[in-house]
Structure formats: C-alpha cells, structure tokens
C-alpha cells in the first residue's frame, strides 16, 4: 500500500512498447511545442515586471490615466496574461487528452 505500484487490476503493461509508439512520440512532441515556448513567454513577461520596476522606475512612473501609471497597468496585465494563458492551455490540453486516450486504448 505504500510504494506507488499499479493496482492488481492493471494487467502487466509493456511501457517501453507504448513509449516507442509513433502516436505517443507525436503527442510528446506536440506538448513540447506548446509548453516550452509558453513557459519561456510567461517567464519573460513576468520577470520583465520586477526588472523594469527595479531598474527603470522613471519609465514605470509615467502616468497613463489620472494617477494610474505604467507600473500599475503592467502589473494588472499580468493577471490577464495568466488567465488567458490558462484558458489557451485548457483548450490545447483537451486535444492532447484525446490523443493520449487513443495511445493507451489497447492497454486498458
């Protein structure tokens, strides 16, 4: 009950065989094509905030609407960036689910 072993119901699975399937390789490639660029994008977009705020405070203090400045707008935009990113990810990942289900279809 302690080590994460497959339960008794699961038949012995040839993991290497599934891993070598072209459909599975394609799934991994598709995931990497989305996740890697998305991760690089959000990290750069996010880290730009402390870098700009820390090192270019005069630029960030520019007012855009009343007393609301670039710094506040950029910080607020991070929330929308995160929500949009999550929305896109869920859409894309739903397609991966279908491929993953096909890959393991014969092994249930």
């Amino acid at each position, binding site marked *: *009950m*302690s*080590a*994460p072993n*497959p*339960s008794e119901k*699961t038949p012995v*699975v040839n*993991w*290497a065989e*599934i*891993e*070598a399937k072209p459909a*599975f390789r394609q*799934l*991994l490639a598709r*995931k990497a094509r989305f*996740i890697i660029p*998305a*991760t690089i994008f*959000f*990290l750069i977009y*996010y*880290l730009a*905030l*402390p*870098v700009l*705020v*820390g*090192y270019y*405070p005069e630029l*960030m*203090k520019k007012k855009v609407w*009343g*007393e*609301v*400045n670039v*710094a*506040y707008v950029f*910080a*607020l935009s*991070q*929330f929308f*960036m*995160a*929500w949009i*990113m*999550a*929305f896109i*990810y*869920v859409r894309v*990942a739903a397609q991966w*689910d279908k491929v*993953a*289900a096909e*890959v*393991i279809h014969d*092994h*249930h």
Partner: protein
Amino acid sequence: MSVLPLIMFLSFVALTLLITFWAAKRNTGASAYFAAGRSITGWQNGLAVAGDYMSAASFLGISGMICFSGYDGFMYSVGFLVAYITVLLIVAEPLRNAGKYTMADLLAYRLSPRPVRALASLSTLTVSTFYMIAQMVGAGAIIQRLIGLPFVPAVIGVGVLMLVYVVFGGMLATTWVQIIKALLLMAGAILLSYLVLQHHSFSFAKFFEAVAHADYGGSADPKNLMEPGLKFGVAVAGPWGPLDLVSLGLGLVLGTAGLPHILVRFYTVPDAKTARSSVVWAMAIIGLFYIMTTFFGFGAATILKKALITTIDGKPDTNMVAPILAQQLGGETFFAFISAVAFATILAVVAGLTMSASASFAHDFYTNVIHHGKEHRPGQEVRVARITAFCVGAVSIGIAIYLGPSVNAAFLVGLAFAVAASANLPVIVLSVFWKRFNTAGAVAGLGVGLSSSILLILLSKNGPAFLGHVFPLENPGIVSIPIGFLAAYLGTILTARDPDAEAKFAELTVRAHTGLGAEKATSH
C-alpha cells in the same frame, strides 16, 4: 471586547470542528486520510487550492505590505498568481498521474527511493515549517487584537486547535474547511473592497487620486503609493534593492510548483484532467482576490490613521491592516466577521500544511525509508502522521513565539517560496523531463537547493547577528534557485549513468502523459 465578535468567532471554530468530526467518521484507511479518497471534484479542489493559498500571508500580510510600502507590496500579489502557470503547465498533471500521496512519490518512481524520499521529506518539513510560522504569527496578532489575549497564549491556542483538525480530520476535513473558508474570505474581501470604493464615492479616479496622495487619514505627510520603489527602490533599500525585487519575483513564480501542501491537493482529485481544471478554478478565484488586495491595501493607506495601525512598541502593525480597516468602515460586526474569517483562514492553512508535512514524514520517511515500503500493521502510517503533526506544530509555535508579532507574514511566506523553488522544483522538473537524471543528481539538487537557500536567509540582514549579515539580498531565490538546478545537473553528469532509472523513464513518461495506471478514486 464586545460579545458579538466573540460569538461570531466561536461559531466559526465550531463549524470547522463539526466538519472535522464529520470527516473523521468517513476516514477509512490511508487513501481517505491522505488523499480524501481521490473523490474531490475540479471546482471543489480549485476552491480548496485557493483556500490553501489565500493564507495569512495573502490576506493579512499583503494588505499590510501594500498599506505601508504601496506598489512594491502589490508585487507579492502578482507573483503569487502568475506562479500558477508554472503549476498548470509543468507540474500538476504529471504529478497526479505518477504519484500517490506526496511529492516524493514522483521522484521515487525511477530513482533509488530511500535517499530521495529521505531528503524530499526533510525539504517538505522545512518548507511547511517556514510557511506555518507565518500563519502562527498572523494568528497570534489577530487573537491578540480580537480577544485581548497576549501573543504567546494566542499562538499556543491556535496550535492546539490545528492539531485537533489534523489528528481527527485528515485531508477530507481540511479540504472542506478550505472550501468554506475560501468562499467566506472572498465574500469578506468583496465587501471590504466595496466599502473602500464607497468611501471614495465609487470613483476609481478619486480612489487612485487619494492613493497617489496617501496621508493615512491626515495623520502623515502625503506620499504617492502608486509609484514603485517604496520598499525595493534604490533610495530606500540601497543599490541591491532592485535585484532583491527580481529575486523575490523569481522565488514566487517558481516556488508554488514546489510547495508540498499545494502539490498534495492534486492527489485528492480523480484524474489529471480534474487536476488541470482545479488549477484553472483556483487561478480565477485567487486572481480576483489579489486584484482586490489593491483596494483594501491602498484603501487602508487613504483611510486609517497611523496610530490605529501601529503596535504598542511603535512599529508598523503590518499584519492587522485589513481587520482594522473593516472595523473603521463596517463597524464591530464587520470587524468580527473579517477577524473570524482571517482566523479560520489561518487554521485551515495550518491544517493543510501540517497534513502535507506529516503525510510526507509518515509515508516517505517512516514507511519507505525506515521500513522499506512495508507497513507492519494497518493504520501505522496514519498514526505516525498524527505524531508528526504534533511535532511540526510544536516547532512552528516555538519559532513564531521567538520571532514575535511584528514580522510580516507575506515576507515569511516569500522565504518559504524561495526554499521550495530552490530545493523541490529542480528535481521535480528534471525527474519528469530528463532521462539521464539519476539518484545522485536528485540528492544533490534537494540537499544543495535546501541548504543554500536556508544559508542565504541566515546570512542576510534577517539572520542572526553573529553571522554578520553578509548577503545583501533579503530574498535568496536569484542565487539559490540556479544553484539548486546546477547541483541537480552536476550531481547527475558527474556520477555514473543509472541504467535502471533510465529504463524506468519510459514508464514514467507514459504514466505522466497518459494517466495509464494512475491511482484511482477509491470511495463510493
């Protein structure tokens, strides 16, 4: 101390205790105790994750930080939310597919289980304790203000209540306490934001105008809280200030994906798809909450007189701004409500933290390291978890009393994030995505990441005086996170290849990306 706040406060405590006893009756075995029978749905888990996250640091700490340091305090809010993209894209689904109860399950999959579990358990206990200290400090401050109880007995009282939740309730109880608390906290935050905007005649222009000339109800010279730099700017923090801000940001955005008490939440859902949807639910709730922190954080600086938010010894009372704002704008009833919710928040978060720490010690260290993965008697793992909960609680109470009430809760939690990002994140990522990764690499990554981040905190200006305060940053992330990754990488390539680990990479990859053979829901 009037009667109403006390009644409100006690009824919250009673409500959460009822949930705990209800859950205790449904605890039938380890999967129920540690993972709520994997029966929690997406939105429920999303609320519970949000509940775990909207801790004393988020509500009490950040509002105080924004009230005193303006825009720079808001940086915590932003980092706390964006961090969830790391969880969503990289960690949540592989973890749910390949693990069972703890973060170490994923690591032990293809690596030598005993050293990896031992270190992962140590790191889990460390991060949880850091996080818990922040909650204890917040709880002590609230009880002090609400009931007039001194700080020390207040903290001890919280510790005792928390043990009741964990010892009897397990994961199902803490999950439901979190869900209810998340809803109450959101309601409180919305009402508080509404009252602040009402104070400024529902005009955003007027509100931001006031924030840009915040004078603490006329009790101080006006300062512009909209402008960055009041905490990390060169003029205030010296030449290292901006780098400290970047370091904080890095720790926050990478830390959540290594927080044990957040990671274990993904084991309470039936499958990876539900894990994914629960992250999205959590992001929606947490994001709204953090946007509101600007209303009551900034709002406090425009409304509250300095004398109200100063402790007896003249320091800024950085953890009590939100409840005091509620008192000023909504009277005693609203103050009682906000305080009770904040206190429930702390109890629930502390219970979640204790759960993950004790699960890790019982499951990883006791069962798998000492007893080689065999439970001698049924129920032993659960019993050890309960004993661990007691010890972790006692240690955190001790340190919280030592630190005292004036240290900011958000700052303390920021440190927990940096430790999690340095020790846990590198090994989680590398074990899922790098075939060559081996046991030596995991041990090096966990050990060096953990010790370097702790060491840098001790060497910073917040460490003990005899270490000389030689490290110029308060937040260690920008140094310790790369060190954690580097140690994991060097530990791997400088030691022999591990054919077993590489052979099992195929299995882990298939499991992580398809969910084949994942732990199933057990209840019903």
